[in-house]
């Protein structure tokens, strides 16, 4: 008994979807729902413009699991937030900032909190929609013209025909007993296509592509190489005028872009009052024959000296110090005639030379050798000499150098 103001449907052949009762106030609907609940129907529902308090018990709706899902999502968010910060700040990219430890839990709380809330909130909406089966594009009720008022001011109750207890006459009688304003059959929907409209499908495809695009480009940039200079979107801001070393600057009267220290000042940490340490000289100006007190002949300093020697000295003087580094070998192989072999460090005069003088040679250079003072730190220059002394000793060892207990092995 479909009413004539319903939308077009092939009602003649469409099977029955269910029975729809309409009420004009919430109380009547709740009373009706209680009756249907007590009659133990399963596939039925009520439809209202707003949530009605007291409807859940009236319909026998069990509490949803949603809070639990959200709780676990929040916990996941918290763990991810903490774990990600730990991994990036401690393992993958440790970087000292304002003297804080890499793992500064107090500074990680805000972000961990935000990820907790973010995961929970996204899950709340997502899980609510999923549990409710939304989006739900078409429904047989949509064909009922009166049903449009469900989002306005009317209250509906639908018992579906697929319910085991559904019986055309009994169910109708049950609903009649609840005094609905209107009681009506609902036919299955035979007019609306099951498929999504092409417009929506197309739009989804375009959106998906657009969403993937930036990530694809970023990935391409990470795995490929390019000879092109990078793109300057805003050249004005990328290439800002600034003074490079040795350039002129119109700002100053002397046109020098680099500015010297203000007369009478010393930069912090550059006072360097200790002659022995910084210049290898004793008070009277003589070369120091001992190491400064800051440089102890320790295993650690020796290792450090070996390392620095390997980096800065060995290319010319050779790893063993015989003046046969790989630069010398290459130059000798080219045989160009002007090449002077680097000094052999195992010569006697070098064995006797005061460490202060060696320090001075490393700092300022000697003959063909350039100074390394601006490349190698003060401590490391001393460490190099420490190592060099050990090296020199290795080619001029006496039997007395061997500990007494081991000396027997020499024979």
């Amino acid at each position: 008994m479909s009413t004539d103001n319903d939308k077009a449907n092939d009602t003649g052949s469409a099977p029955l979807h269910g029975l729809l009762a309409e009420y004009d106030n919430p109380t009547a609907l709740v009373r009706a729902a209680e009756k249907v609940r007590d009659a133990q129907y399963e596939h039925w529902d009520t439809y209202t413009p707003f949530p009605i308090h007291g409807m859940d018990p009236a319909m026998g709706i069990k509490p949803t699991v949603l809070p639990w899902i959200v709780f676990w999502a929040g916990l996941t968010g918290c763990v991810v937030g903490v774990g990600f910060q730990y991994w990036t700040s401690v393992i993958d990219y440790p970087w000292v900032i304002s003297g804080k430890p890499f793992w500064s839990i107090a500074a990680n709380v805000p972000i961990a909190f935000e990820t907790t809330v973010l995961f929970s909130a996204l899950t709340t909406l997502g899980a609510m929609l999923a549990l409710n089966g939304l989006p739900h594009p078409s429904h047989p009720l949509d064909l009922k013209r009166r049903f449009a008022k469900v989002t306005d001011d009317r209250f509906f109750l639908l018992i579906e025909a697929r319910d085991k207890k559904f019986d055309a006459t009994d169910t109708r009688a049950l609903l009649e007993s609840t005094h609905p304003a209107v009681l009506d059959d609902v036919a299955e929907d035979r007019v609306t296509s099951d498929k999504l409209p092409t417009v929506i499908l197309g739009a989804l495809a375009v959106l998906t592509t657009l969403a993937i695009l930036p990530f694809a480009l970023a990935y391409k940039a990470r795995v490929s190489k390019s000879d092109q200079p990078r793109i300057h979107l805003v050249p004005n801001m990328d290439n800002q005028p600034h003074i490079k070393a040795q350039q002129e600057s119109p700002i100053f009267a002397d046109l020098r872009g680099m500015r010297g220290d203000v007369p009478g000042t010393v930069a912090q940490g550059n006072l360097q009052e200790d002659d022995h340490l910084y210049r290898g000289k004793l008070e009277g100006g003589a070369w120091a024959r001992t190491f400064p007190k800051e440089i102890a002949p320790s295993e650690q300093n020796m290792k450090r000296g070996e390392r620095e020697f390997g980096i800065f000295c060995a290319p010319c003087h050779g790893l063993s110090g015989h003046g046969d580094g790989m630069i010398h070998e290459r130059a000798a192989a080219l045989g160009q005639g002007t090449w002077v072999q680097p000094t052999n460090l195992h010569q006697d005069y070098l064995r006797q030379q005061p460490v202060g003088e060696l320090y001075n040679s490393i700092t300022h250079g000697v003959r063909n050798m350039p100074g390394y003072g601006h490349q190698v730190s003060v401590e490391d220059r001393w460490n190099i000499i420490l190592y060099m002394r050990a090296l020199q000793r290795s080619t001029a060892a006496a039997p007395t150098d061997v500990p007494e207990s081991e000396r027997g092995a020499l024979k």
Partner: protein
Amino acid sequence: MAATIKAGAAEVSAATSGLNPYQGPPVGDNVFAKITQNVSRVMEVPKPPRAWYIAFGIALTLLSIFGACLGWVVWEGIGAWGNMVPVAWAFDITNFVFWVGIGHAGTLISAVLFLLRQNWRTAVNRFAEAMTIFAVACAAIFPGIHIGRPWLPYWMFPIPNQMGMWPQFRSPLEWDVFAVGTYATVSVLFWYMGMIPDFATFRDRSTSTIKRAAYGLVAMGWRGSSRQWHRYERAYLLLAALATPLVLSVHSVVSFDFATAQLPGWHTTIFPPYFVAGAIFGGFAMVLVLAVPARQFFGLKYIITIKHIELMAMVILATGMVVGYAYGMEFFIAWYSGSMYEGFTFQNRAFGPYAWAYWTMIFCNVVSPQIFWWKKMRSSPWVAFIVGVIVNVGMWFERFVIIGTSLARDFLPGSWGYFIPTPVDYLTLGGSFGLFFTLFLLFCRYLPMVAMAEVKSIMPEAHVAHGDHH
């Protein structure tokens, strides 16, 4: 349906005869239908009132100025602003904090008042939520452009980049990215979820196919099933419970930007709750600024009543006192600390070169809300509107006072300076209002301005009668 169609026709004829179709009491044969009709006619009537066009024109003009300013800043660099050393943060960050603050009342009204069962919130919560999202959109622009190379803001996000570097998670500025990002996301979710049932109403009332399809798409097939309402209500409660600490965290994190530093005037432990209170204060003031004209021009007086205005005025008075408490406490502790720098900073605020900004702030935020002690003033919409405007001015100045005056004179007199804004500074600030109001006016025209389902659910008629059944 027939009744509504008739009512719609009456409105159309009213519109053609030159009357404002939004005015006049809503029609319908019951209280629920009246609410539906009152809210929906904004979307259904072919033309909005003239005031809307005027406002939209002004907003669009401001928006284009904003766009031009941003373009100029991108091209020229932030030298276009008056920022300098020592005042390296000036209007940019002031505007950011100002807009983020405005963006707080929305979630506050939606979530906190929901948890506190303040039912009056239903009249204004949708407004406030929309306001939140638009304000956060305005706010998010400023950290993006103040970094100097605005095409590289993705460096702030935790994505593997070409340089093998990660953002610095121990920095409060990075916390901001997460806090504001999360807040924007959750606010949109909350807003959208609240609108699903109302979109369904619009869908079912639409007469044109395009509108029907558009509203139908966003309503996702909502039909008001009680089984769905059950989960929906639970989800709404959960989102409210999540949004409440979130809203506290966002402005707290913004306050950390300053308070973790050692600069006198920035480093003070009361900043987190003080910033939150200030945000609520400014946010409610902005709701008044928006709600008073909206109810006037769109005929929403039947939903947003004088009672609502009065309650919001009370909230403004209360939060204004909290802000005043924080001002006082900062001053007292600056003296009590015995630190000469702290002491100087506050002396300098009140009597130094920026004293004009300080006293503007005090007048706007502490003095002007005192008018709300009188009921007559609280219940006058236009007084509330004016105080709302004044408070917003005051809250902008509060951020400027904190940022500008503290930076301008720090520990070392040799590095003192005085910030003078350029025209670009002023126009960017003004222009950001253009973005805000453009979005807001579009919202008023096309989206459900009031949460219909929620308003209906708190009507006495919505309650199920007890006792007459067995």
